[in-house]
């Protein structure tokens, strides 16, 4: 390069856009103006065709005949893809096999909506019309959608697993009081606003350029290469942003990327495959429904002595990520409570449903919810407010009550003081008294109140995933391009990592452009999941920045004879002794002196280990903590309800961006509340998902947000571990705060027994469920 671009007229001043600042989402302006490009918005090559998938119409059976002649003859159809056409792997199971990409004659259908074949046509509508024209004859076999039945029949996708400490059975038997209970929680559809979509363009070297709305580009790359039977280096996956992911685009984006790639390979042109909303509902996995049985022993104050718990997750037809998901449910069966003796067993039950998958919390919420249901029942049994019983059972540094049932020591006891703070700021006890008075005088409407905590373990429990890479280029005008392995799905990851890099160089955020996540920029990445995005990619980016900074400092030493301590980056400038250079000037100087201005960074989480054979270790680097108080009003005549007020306190360590963190907390809380209230998945006798669209599956709408909604980040609580600027993960933990809403509904129902009895309320607590719980409570009292 001979002609260097003119230097930006940047006036020295305070670089404000750094860590801890309440910056806007990096794409906020693009979002509001409609300019933000999602996969379906990318201009496609002129020859691009559109894909659609033909799906099974039974839940269980064998395909006797698959006649696609009408599909092939349908107007606009250019290519049809069957199992036999696939040149490489035919199974795309992400961890264990079991996910056939397509099915052919003789193939075994395992859920209603399973992909049989794919078709490419000139238009989206033509492709979708053709996909409905297959003539399929099945030999039906009996299907099962019931978790309990599957468990009885020992229909499992993976072996059961137990974590235990002490002799739980003996501890329960020796307890003054005992309780046996069951609890069910339903699944949850991700309902990302942008459905699954992939655009695949064949490259000149028989490779594939894949634009995919995915949380896991590297896995998409691997699977596309495998189904095409080509090396990974021929496949590039790119994703600039997703219109929501929530776990639903971790493994479940793969199938559509693979099918689009195969159709593109077969048709020899670009293919876009976008699922219609109903196909998306039917064909992609959801949060696991759970059925839990527990026996708990406790004393007259509600202090737990021992627990035996069987957590059975409904996995659908294949393993997918269910091993780790049910493990995480087990890891969170303690929530914030010390279990002196425990046997926690997790079962991975096979059902004839779509394979259930990651969803914000990854099994943790289900384990935690079962335990909170148990605590509610203990509290009613001993006649105490559930808050009191919760507080009594918290982990504490005293009396050795500080290790989990899987042997990890709780090193920072944040929950007790956080809860105490929230009890004060929310005026829990004042409102408790007021609500009891209200309920005495109000025969139809009843108010309910509950505080629930959430302690959530941070790290992938699959150890090798706890690594990340980043790539930083500084160009000769001083502008910085940043890339890392994390994907942007709305959570503000790109913004936070850019803040980290701006902070490292002490430059304005505008100087940094975060580019689309691509497997050819940063390879072998982990999914953006497990709340790990900022922790992992922030550290990797910081590493890259520090590498370049060191080169620049060394250069200043050689060039100016300065000591390393004399070189500092400050306010968009580089100071070398008394000399001041604008950042761009200094970068130009470094370039002219042949200093490399590009570096990769890398990070692996330290200190974590876990032995699954002994079910013990330190699987989590640290815990994110929070608590919520929810108040609801129910109509005992109809079961309808409203959330009146919510108070939240969440421990995010030293926040990288409080505005973004608050957004994650509010959004997670409402999403968790939705899971436990109006979001109900219903399958028919025939195994068909009946709630298969936004018309029939109801996620929270704007009126479901409480009018009084107070969120606080726990102040002065830096992460003790050496995380990125001592922040804490925030993606998943707040979802579990939604449990407070479910508990408050139960509390309102319990008022009908003058709080002597626990409400019989499973999840989701739809108005109908609340109505039934009220009715049975009234019948008994």
């Amino acid at each position, binding site marked *: 390069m001979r002609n260097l671009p003119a230097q930006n007229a940047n006036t020295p001043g305070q670089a404000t856009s750094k860590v801890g600042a309440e910056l806007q*989402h990096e794409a906020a302006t693009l979002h509001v*103006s409609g300019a933000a490009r999602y996969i379906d918005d990318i201009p496609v090559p002129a020859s691009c065709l559109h894909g659609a998938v033909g799906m099974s119409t039974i839940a269980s059976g064998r395909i006797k005949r698959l006649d696609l002649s009408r599909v092939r003859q349908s107007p606009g159809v250019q290519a049809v893809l069957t199992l036999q056409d696939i040149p490489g792997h035919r199974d795309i199971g992400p961890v264990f096999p079991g996910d056939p990409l397509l099915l052919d004659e003789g193939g075994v259908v395992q859920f209603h909506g399973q992909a049989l074949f794919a078709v490419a046509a000139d238009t989206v509508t033509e492709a979708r019309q053709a996909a409905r024209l297959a003539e399929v004859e099945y030999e039906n076999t009996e299907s099962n959608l019931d978790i309990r039945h599957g468990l009885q029949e020992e229909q499992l996708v993976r072996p059961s697993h137990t974590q235990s400490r002490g002799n739980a059975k003996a501890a329960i038997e020796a307890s003054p009081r005992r309780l046996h209970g069951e609890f069910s929680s339903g699944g949850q559809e*991700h309902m*990302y606003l942008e459905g699954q979509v992939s655009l695949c363009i064949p490259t000149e070297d028989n490779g594939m350029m894949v634009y995919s709305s995915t949380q896991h580009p590297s896995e998409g790359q691997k699977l596309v290469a495998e189904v095409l039977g080509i090396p990974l280096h021929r496949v590039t996956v790119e994703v600039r942003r997703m219109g929501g992911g929530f776990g639903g685009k971790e493994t479940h984006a793969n199938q559509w990327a693979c099918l689009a790639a195969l159709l593109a390979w077969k048709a020899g042109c670009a293919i876009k495959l976008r699922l219609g909303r109903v196909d998306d509902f039917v064909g992609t996995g959801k949060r696991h429904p759970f059925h839990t049985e527990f026996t708990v022993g406790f004393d007259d104050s509600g202090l737990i002595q021992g627990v035996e718990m069987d957590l059975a997750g409904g996995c659908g037809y294949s393993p997918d990520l269910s091993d780790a998901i049910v493990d995480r449910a087990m890891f969170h069966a303690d929530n914030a409570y010390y279990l002196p003796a425990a046997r926690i067993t997790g079962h991975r039950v096979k059902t004839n449903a779509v394979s259930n998958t990651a969803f914000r919390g990854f099994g943790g919420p289900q384990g935690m919810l079962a335990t909170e249901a148990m605590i509610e029942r203990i509290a009613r049994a001993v006649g105490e407010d559930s808050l009191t019983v919760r507080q009594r059972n918290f982990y504490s540094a005293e009396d050795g009550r500080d290790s989990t049932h899987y042997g990890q020591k709780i090193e920072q006891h944040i929950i007790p003081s956080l809860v105490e703070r929230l009890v004060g700021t929310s005026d829990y006890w004042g409102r408790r008294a007021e609500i009891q008075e209200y309920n005495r005088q109000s025969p139809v409407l009843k108010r309910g109140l509950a505080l629930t905590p959430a302690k959530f373990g941070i790290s992938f429990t699959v150890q090798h995933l706890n690594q990340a890479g980043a790539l930083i280029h500084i160009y000769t005008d001083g502008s910085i391009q940043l890339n890392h392995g994390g994907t942007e799905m709305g959570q503000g990851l790109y913004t936070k990592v850019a803040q980290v890099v701006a902070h490292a160089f002490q430059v304005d955020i505008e100087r940094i452009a975060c580019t689309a996540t691509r497997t050819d920029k940063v390879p072998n990445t982990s999914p953006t999941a497990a709340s790990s995005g900022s922790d992992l990619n922030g550290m990797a980016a910081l590493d890259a920045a520090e590498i370049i900074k060191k080169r620049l400092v060394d250069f200043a030493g050689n060039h100016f004879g300065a000591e390393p301590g004399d070189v500092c980056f400050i306010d968009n400038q580089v100071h070398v002794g008394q000399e001041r250079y604008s950042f761009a000037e200094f970068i130009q100087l470094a370039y002219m002196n042949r200093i490399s201005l590009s570096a990769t960074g890398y990070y692996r989480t330290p200190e974590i280990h876990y032995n699954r054979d002994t079910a013990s270790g330190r699987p989590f680097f640290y815990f994110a903590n929070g608590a919520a108080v929810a108040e609801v009003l129910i109509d005992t005549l109809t079961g*309808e309800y*409203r959330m009146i007020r919510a108070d939240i306190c969440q421990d995010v360590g030293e926040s990288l961006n409080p505005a973004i963190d608050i957004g994650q907390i509010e959004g997670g809380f409402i999403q968790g509340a939705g899971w436990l209230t109006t979001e109900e998945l*219903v399958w028919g006798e025939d195994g068909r998902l009946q709630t298969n669209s*936004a018309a029939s599956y109801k996620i929270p709408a704007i*009126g479901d947000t409480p009018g009084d909604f107070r969120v606080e980040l726990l102040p002065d609580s830096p992460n003790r571990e050496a995380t990125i600027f001592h922040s804490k993960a925030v993606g998943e933990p707040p979802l579990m705060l939604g449990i407070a809403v479910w508990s408050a509904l139960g509390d309102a129902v319990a008022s009908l027994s003058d709080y002597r009895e626990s409400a019989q309320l499973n999840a989701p607590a739809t108005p109908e469920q609340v109505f039934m719980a009220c009715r049975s409570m009234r019948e008994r009292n």
Partner: protein
Amino acid sequence: MVKFVLQDRVHRVEGADPGMTVLDYLRERLARTGTKEGCAAGDCGACTVVVASLAHPETDGAEPGLRYHAINSCITPLGSLQGKQLITVEDLQQGDALHPVQQCMVDQHGSQCGFCTPGFVMSMFAHRKTAQSADRNAICDALGGNLCRCTGYRPIIDAATAMFEGSTQDQFTHTEPHTLALLAQLTIDEPENTPGYDQPASVDQLAAILEQHPQATLVAGGTDLYLQVTQSLQRFDHLVDISDVAELSTVRQEGDILDIGAAAPYSDIRAPLVANFPSLGELLDRLGSLQIRNRGTIGGNIANASPIADMPPALIALGATMRLRCGENTRDVMLEDFYTAYRRTILQPGEFIERIRIPLLAAEESLWTYKLSKRWEDDISATCAAIYLRLEDGIVADTRIAFGGMAEIPRRAPASENALIGTSWNEANVRIAAEKLTEDFHPISDFRASADYRLSASQNLLLRCYLESSNAGTPIRMHLHA
């Protein structure tokens, strides 16, 4: 040929498929991809655009000028834009300057993944153009048809509140005279019909077209019909769009009758309906979303013959009649006699609903309506109750009790009614009448509700009606006490 105003110019579309939606046209033909498809069924609002049209002071009593409506572009026929202005998210920003509504969303951190954001921005824009000041309930009403899965809505509510702090003036205010002139010209121009897509301008024309083509499909708002296009992938050979027949959108009071044109969209008739029947306010606010009510019509809601439509129970309870027309012939029928079986009506080929005529209430008469659904906003009823009462000295002189969601058609509950007529309006008698509902209805169980809940909760709705009508002190209605 469809002609509408886009970006201050008249935009002409030739040769579009009659079933083409506004969304597909924007995204596929114009590559205006700011407007998103979230569900293609009018349930998520990601596709929201704004349509500005000439006010019709002579028929709808509005001030002259432009009226702004947020609509779901995914289920709106392209042809319905004829003579209107289409405003999409791309039209709001000017150069580098965001529209104030957009700026508020940025300032309040109102977007996360951003996919729902253009739809929210457009709903907010329309709300800013139509509402006078920030009111939380009104904001929730205006944005109830827009789903966001990321934010939990709080920052969006804050943004919608903050937007009222700025000026109402924007580029659309400045170009209003120009837009009005363009639209006025379009209404004078002789319409050039798209083949397979008729747009009659008068009821007589409509009657003539249908007489000649009795198999043609009528489309008014299209909020249900177009699901057949986007979800069932169906093609229609011949659509007759009645949304521009001015006579079919009028509302007038004739003596003690409120007389409503069948093609009047719900948002246009809310005021006169609620003025006469206050209990309909909540029901109408929970009927679909604002985008749906801006397009969906009362006649379409009736003719669609869904057992879970929200207005028919109320209209049956009120004793509403309908004027049906076929060619030159008209006949008046009671709405309760309109439905014959699941999704079946007495409409003959070529016949259409012209007007709905609702008797007004006398002092001793009252109407109570209740809807139960999983979600408060934009959800379909599990059960929907409407109770008409005429009380004379505490005695039930007459009652009509109608339910939706309880049978294959919306219909009355004769056993329950008979149990009440002639008795004192007291809790014991209402409980007896509620018990009689088990004779009137044998509802089904489906994903919305079990038969048990439908029946039991419906019984309690009668009790709620009694409590609400007789008890001033006890809190009965959740939304009034939350």
